[in-house]
């Protein structure tokens, strides 16, 4: 598969490679759901910095990943959408509504940590 998944403390970071086939995307979805359960992860970041094209199938699969991760009780953030890709998505009429996004991996991790911190504070 052309994506790598890295476990970093309570988070999973999936880095998507330049070109993913439909099968690659579906496999990523399956491995992420297995990963969230196995590691009891509370957050997932899908880094699409390297993705050169986001067509309707890719967007639908990403939305599906985000919704599924949410149902498993974790947060999902898509990071690194390139400006050209974002422009093309808008023209095509595609949105990632309901899915959190961040500029890059660093911002995405900050966002997850802030939400984790907020939760912890409320539990005190």
């Amino acid at each position, binding site marked *: 598969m052309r994506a790598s998944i890295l476990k970093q403390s309570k988070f999973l970071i999936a880095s998507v490679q330049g*070109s993913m*086939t*439909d*099968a690659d995307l579906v496999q990523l979805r399956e491995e992420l759901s297995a990963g969230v359960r196995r590691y009891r992860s509370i957050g997932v970041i899908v880094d699409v910095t390297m993705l*050169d*094209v*986001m*067509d*309707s*199938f890719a*967007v*639908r699969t990403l939305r599906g990943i985000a919704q599924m991760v949410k149902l498993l009780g974790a947060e999902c953030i898509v990071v690194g959408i*390139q*400006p*050209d*890709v974002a*422009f*093309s998505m808008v*023209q*095509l*009429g*595609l949105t990632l509504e309901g899915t959190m996004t961040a500029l890059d991996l660093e911002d995405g991790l900050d966002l997850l940590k802030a939400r984790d911190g907020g939760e912890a504070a409320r539990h005190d």
Partner: protein
Amino acid sequence: MTEPGELVVPIKADVDVLTVRQHARSLVSGLRFSSSELTLIATAISEVARNIVIYAGRGEIVLRLVQQGKRRGLAVIARDQGPGIADIERAMQDGYSTSRGLGLGLPGSKRLMDEFEVVSEVGKGTQVTMTKWER
């Protein structure tokens, strides 16, 4: 015979969606397309190639460098002998899909390109012709 500046890429599996995108990028490398326009072209090609895989199972995409006066461009002809589209007008509306799609494939691709035409006959197949011109 394939002329120079023309490529015929067979489409029969999802991996061919990537292949045809890569061929298009290298074919237009000599043209003055911005990186943003290249992404629009690649995305539109991805959508029509995916339509072939999903609806027809197999088909082909012709990539052709075209010229109109001083303007150069890329023509993309996606054709298959699949089931065809019964109601093209509806298929060109946002949100209309008969499969697992988002229903943005055809109308979306039209917005990404400069020229766009669909010819289809039920039981015979579908041909999408779309062109992007240099600015």
